[in-house]
């Protein structure tokens, strides 16, 4: 039997590499009875389409940025609050704990079987106008954002002018100055070659993004128990490996972006505190969609509030 799993990350991305390990582990664990065909790099459509395809059962699974399931399962937004996780370790602790379980139940209710949470990483802002060192530096910047309410509200709260734009037009838009900047994790900034058209980089780390690996629930449940077990075991291994690779890739990408000529300005703890304070109102917005209890639980687990 062949299971098809698609993703929108490039084949070189840590998540795609980890999926290669997943494939090998599943095929080994089932003595080749299950074959996994992987389609990274949008071969089977963009992220939203992959999610739809898994939900309707056209493909078995996908690994995708958490933002693309957050409209279907708004509880995901609880772990996407601005300036929530200071370290990746905290993020994993929260998602691997009771909060993660609660979100996974919601995903299951919408027809997905969550197999694990990989790291997309901290998102950082780049731009062409000025180095981002203080809260004031965000004022009036035209930053391209994902069309996500939390993201847009956060940057409005910082004084920036977020612009929703198709990612296909982003490189040219940055190059020609249609927008001033964008925000992404370091490895994505490097892979998309935005360093060629962007001058300034700061470790704003405004959001931490996960990459959930999800399968179609009906198809997963229909598998033999020993196959399910093989898949679960392979997911655990792949996720652990990815988190290691992602940490390395993140550090390496930052170094490389500087080597490629971007000016990097690390934010001071005072600035980070100011950014956090300016965006504190976003929490109430998210509570409306993701549920106040869950958000409070997340804040407590992340050590942000008692």
């Amino acid at each position, binding site marked *: 039997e062949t299971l098809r799993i698609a993703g929108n990350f490039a084949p070189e991305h840590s998540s795609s590499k980890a999926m290669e390990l997943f494939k090998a582990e599943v095929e080994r664990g089932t003595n080749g009875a299950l074959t996994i065909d992987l389609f990274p790099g949008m071969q089977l459509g963009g992220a939203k389409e992959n999610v*739809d395809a898994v*939900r*309707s059962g056209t493909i078995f699974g996908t690994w995708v940025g958490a933002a693309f399931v957050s*409209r*279907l399962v708004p509880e995901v937004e609880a772990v996407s609050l601005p300036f929530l996780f200071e370290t990746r370790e905290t993020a994993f602790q929260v998602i691997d704990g009771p909060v993660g379980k609660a979100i996974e139940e919601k995903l299951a209710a919408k027809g997905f079987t969550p197999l694990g949470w990989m790291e997309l990483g901290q998102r950082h802002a780049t731009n062409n106008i000025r180095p981002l060192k203080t809260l004031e530096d965000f004022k*009036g910047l*035209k930053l391209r954002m994902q*069309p*996500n*309410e939390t993201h*847009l509200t956060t940057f409005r709260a910082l004084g920036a*002018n*977020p*612009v*929703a*734009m*198709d990612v296909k037009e982003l490189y040219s838009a940055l190059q020609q100055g*249609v927008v001033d900047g964008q925000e992404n994790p370091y490895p994505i900034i490097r892979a998309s070659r935005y360093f060629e058209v962007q001058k300034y980089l700061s470790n704003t780390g405004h959001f931490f993004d996960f990459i959930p690996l999800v399968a179609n629930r009906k198809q997963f449940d229909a598998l033999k128990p020993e196959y399910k077990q093989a898949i679960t075991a392979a997911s655990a291994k792949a996720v652990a490996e990815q988190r290691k690779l992602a940490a390395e890739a993140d550090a390496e990408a930052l170094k490389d972006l500087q080597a490629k000529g971007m000016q990097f300005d690390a934010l001071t703890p005072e600035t980070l505190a100011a950014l956090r304070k300016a965006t504190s109102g976003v929490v109430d917005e998210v509570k409306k969609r993701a549920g106040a209890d869950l958000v409070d639980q997340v804040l407590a687990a992340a050590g942000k509030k008692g």
Partner: protein
Amino acid sequence: MSTLNGVAAPPGTAAAALDRVLDGIDWIVAKVVIGAMIGMVVIVSAQVFMRYALNLSIDWAEEISRLLFVWAVFLAIPLGIRRGAHVGMTLLTDVIPTGPRAGLARLMALLGMGLMAVVGWQAVILTLDQWDEPMSTLDVSVGLFMLPVCIGALHGALHLLSQALGRGVPPGRE
């Protein structure tokens, strides 16, 4: 008496009734397509103006103009069937005699109708499945993206049925 595809159907027949229904649907659909096109132009140019002149951006401009584009395309597909706008190869059909050629065209229309019916029906199921999910930037259903596929495919199936009943136009020329 309706004159769909340039040929009048004999009055009182099923074909004539179908043509009348199609005339009505086409008229409404054309209005919706024109509205969607106007909406696209207005939203996209308003977004440019806002961003350039006022340094503001409309959050939903990109998503809603895409939505209008999807509506315009899928709703205009059946109108294109009526006008024979969908390109095809006439290499073989040009050299065979008129009688068999007309029969072949009707057979192809019948197959096309089957395809459109399957697409339309599956799109109905998907639309209902997705109705609970909101769009990225507005709290309206993401199912609105799939809805025009249902309408366009089922409307297209009716046009192909009309052609299969012998009222076809040759494909590939407008």
